[in-house]
């Protein structure tokens, strides 16, 4: 008894309070989004708010169960859970139901279950387990390989289901790894890659290569502090580019300028590489490799964009980056979503008074675009309240994670925070036109049993771990 009391006392009630508030607000907004006069009873089970009430009840029972179970169970079964969800992901590919182009649902009676939702917490458990294993060192080939497998396996399987959104969530683990010691360079590289992707699409590969070259030269100068060397490099690159581009023009080579520039860059880099080798400037060689890698990436962005991405994905990215605008086609969702949120004004139109969400101008208004209802009916006050509540929860989770004694709990805690963060950024971002339209739910808000339960499990396992942080969990 003593120990049980201890657990309840040690639970972080502040997080639980935030969780309850968010769930309640979510439900209110689902009610508003699908409200109609004929079905105004909150217990009407034919309506989504009625059903969501059941999901919430079930979620609370799940949360309670998780807290009652011994925390060692989660540590012990981490790999087991992971394996189960991976198997489920494979199974869903074979026998799953296709909903909106994605084969990611199991239809069990009246309930649809989406294994991809649950793979988030099992991946977090598996990663935590691996990172907390005895004598783990981040920067070893074997470690990186295992981490890579743990993360990429679910990504691959979810991609195969054609559920790009859920697959992208796994990418947020890079932040967790960073906290656990992954070189900041990787984070930097990821950032630069994203930047290049955007630059290439917004400007053109040609401009991006020029920008990169100038960036590399500046970088070289600050690193080496030798102006003459930088100028020589500049001379080589500039003259060769000019020769190739002009030559292509004069001799009327039927080659795109980008290809000519790529070739000139390759040759200049080769010259510079020989120079660096002879002078034994190995750092320079790394910079050079990096530079050329990024140039190659620039070249491939177009290819990936045109050949790998599906047309609707291309459209959404074009829309986001302002490359093309089609408010009645691809851009409809975002445009209408912005209208709904923007029309809310400072204090909103009032509960059940929203017109844009209620009259179906915003699609998916009870699931992916639930934030529009918040924005329209509760205004700026409502949207900032939601964002602040999430921010409090995220910061609280970082605080909780940092106070863990075990690496397992800390890694898991950070995973929870980062997963929630990614969902928040993408979901809210897409409704206000700051992120591409990726169909992932807003945690605790969006309608749906699977997502509510998976976020509840995700959070409550951590709260359970935190409640017994004084115990030694492993090793």
């Amino acid at each position: 008894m003593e120990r049980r009391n201890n657990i309840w006392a040690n639970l972080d009630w502040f997080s639980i309070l935030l969780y309850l508030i968010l769930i309640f607000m979510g439900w209110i907004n689902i009610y508003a989004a699908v409200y109609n006069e004929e079905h105004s009873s909150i217990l009407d089970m034919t309506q989504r708010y009625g059903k969501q009430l059941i999901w919430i009840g079930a979620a609370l029972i799940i949360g309670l169960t998780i807290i009652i179970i011994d925390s060692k169970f989660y540590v012990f079964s981490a790999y087991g859970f992971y394996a189960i969800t991976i198997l489920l992901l494979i199974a869903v590919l074979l026998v799953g139901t296709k909903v909106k182009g994605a084969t990611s649902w199991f239809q069990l009676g009246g309930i649809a279950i989406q294994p991809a939702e649950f793979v988030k917490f099992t991946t977090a458990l598996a990663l935590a387990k691996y990172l907390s294993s005895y004598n783990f060192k981040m920067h070893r080939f074997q470690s990186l390989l295992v981490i890579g497998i743990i993360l990429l396996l679910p990504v691959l399987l979810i991609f195969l289901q054609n559920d790009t959104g859920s697959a992208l969530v796994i990418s947020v683990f890079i932040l967790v790894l960073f906290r656990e010691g992954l070189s900041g360079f990787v984070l930097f590289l990821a950032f630069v890659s994203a930047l290049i992707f955007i630059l290439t699409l917004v400007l053109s590969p040609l401009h991006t290569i020029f920008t990169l070259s100038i960036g590399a030269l500046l970088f070289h100068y600050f690193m080496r502090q030798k102006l003459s060397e930088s100028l020589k490099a500049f001379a080589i690159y500039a003259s060769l580019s000019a020769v190739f581009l002009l030559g292509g023009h004069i001799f009327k080579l039927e080659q795109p300028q980008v290809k000519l520039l790529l070739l000139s860059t390759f040759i200049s880099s080769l010259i510079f590489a020989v120079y660096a080798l002879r002078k034994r400037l190995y750092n320079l060689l790394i910079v050079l490799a990096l530079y050329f890698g990024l140039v190659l990436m620039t070249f491939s962005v177009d290819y990936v964009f045109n050949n790998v991405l599906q047309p609707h994905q291309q459209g959404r990215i074009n829309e986001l980056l302002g490359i093309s605008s089609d408010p009645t086609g691809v851009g409809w969702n975002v445009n209408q979503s912005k209208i709904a949120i923007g029309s809310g004004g400072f204090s909103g139109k009032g509960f059940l008074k929203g017109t844009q969400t209620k009259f179906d101008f915003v699609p998916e208004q009870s699931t992916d675009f639930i934030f529009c209802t918040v924005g329209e009916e509760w205004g700026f006050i409502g949207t900032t309240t939601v964002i602040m509540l999430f921010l409090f929860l995220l910061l609280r989770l970082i605080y909780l994670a940092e106070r863990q004694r075990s690496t397992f709990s800390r890694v898991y805690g950070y995973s929870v925070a980062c997963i929630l963060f990614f969902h928040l950024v993408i979901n809210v971002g897409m409704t206000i036109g700051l992120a591409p339209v990726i169909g992932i739910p807003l945690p605790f808000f969006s309608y749906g049993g699977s997502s509510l339960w998976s976020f509840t499990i995700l959070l409550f396992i951590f709260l359970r771990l935190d409640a017994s942080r004084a115990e030694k969990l492993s090793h």
Partner: protein
Amino acid sequence: MDNFAKRKYLLAAIFILVALIYTVRLFRLQVLDNNYKQYATRNVLRRVITYPARGLIYDRNGELLVYNKASYDLLVTPRELSAFDTTSFCRILDIDKAELVENLHKAKKYSSYKPSVIIKQLSPENYAVLQEKIFRFPGFFVQARTLREYPQRTAAHALGYVGEVDRAKIEQDPYYTQGDYIGVTGLEKAYEEELRGQKGVNFQLVDVHNRIKGSYREGRSDTVAILGKNLTSTLDADLQAYTEYLMQNKKGSVVAIEPATGEVLTFLSAPTYDPSLLVGRSRGANFLKLNKDTLEPIENRAIRAAYPPGSTFKLINALIGLEEETITPLTTFSCSGRGSRPIRCTHDHYSPIGLRDAIRESCNPYFWHAFNSIIRKYPKADQGYNVWRDHLLTFGLGQRLGTELSNELSGNIPQDSYYNYYYGQNGWNALTVRSMAIGQGELLITPFQLANLAATIANRGYFITPHLVKSVWSTKDDPQDIEFERHETSISPEHFEVVIDGMQAVVEESGVRYYSKLDSITICGKTGTVQNPHGSDHSVFIAFAPKENPKIAISVYVENGVWGSRYAAPIASLIIEKYLNDSIAPRRIPTEERMRDANLLNPIQPK
């Protein structure tokens, strides 16, 4: 605890930074930018226009001339279209597949969310079939409109027609929007504001599928459509129909006026056309066809054709001479028949001749002398001419009479400056403009003005602006009569008697009597023959009847009718007889048939 603990700050910073960026973005979106509120309103508010029925037009006896029949426009919301059986769709609607595809394409180009009209004015038959099957064609819906219908199929030029409003009008008058109907000509145009009523607007909240979700502000911004007002026209439908019956296969014009009120009883420009041709989907094609017709049925000759008045004009010269006291009823002038100078006479009669008989004989020399005496009464020709001209103007000549119909021509009574320009100051005299004496030359008068002249003489010196509408009303008990101005001429009433006696003599004593004299009613008239360089001369006749308390004054122009007495006079007499007696006397039936059967479309007619 570990080496990377400080990285928690970077992660927390990223979280806070993103939250901050989003907050700023939301602030801009929700608080600073007001556009989104307008977009939102535009999204959900649909102005649903309710079109009131256009007012009806009745004739003076309460017979319906114009009413409305239902018609249906087919609209489409392209976004809601799904694949459908175009072949059966086209069969139901009786349209061309290529036309449908093209219209759908246009609609999509306009907006995929907003409905646009794809087929205008479906027939009730097509609509009935479509209505049963429209559920098979999602995205399509039908909007009821009204079209004009003409039970009598007469008076096309007076009534005018209704068409779709053009861009210039939309820009000028905010009442109209694309696709609205508006009166284009005739009374439809003149009384557009009364007839159209007032469109109503219902603001409705609609969802993304254009389904109505409720009213906006509980209907406080809505306005109710107000029905168009009805017109009671001055036209007599039976008389109009009879006139058209007589004037078939002829070019020309007939205008009959009730002298005491200025009410137009008959208004015909021949050849006329069936007004129901200019209604509905075939309007464009029919208009083109009518417009290309060399007989120019579209042209409104009654107010748009100006002819020299011919001998009918001699009546005015007589009246002016009497008023100017240069002649008296007893004044005689000698006539040398065909040897007369400067204008020869076309009739054989005794000489010297007095005014009454000169009118009967239409004696050119007499009216030359009368005209000459007026001009020469003043020391200079242009002074005399201006006095003479001022008298003419009080008859409403040389200017628009100001009836409701637009595009009325003013005719032409040349100013003295015109002659000064050609002949120089003092370079001309009565002799120079002698053709004025007998209604030829530069004089131009419309049939409408000429009818008004007959009415003015019938009234012994005044006229009321001739008009086509008696009253405007919403309910029969509360008609709103329209007042028109009374105009006095410069001629004293007593001078009219001798002229009217002359007119009576025209009908009862001259050759006109054979086909135009009635047994029971005294008609006073004057023939005219208008010289026509392009073919046979035009036949003109003005008249009024009965002599005392005249009920009808009329002008008849029959192009290429050769002599005034040959066609214009008998036709006028038949119309008068029909109007006053309600039937044609048996002995005059052959005349009626001869008039009806005469085909004068060939400009060359035997003398």
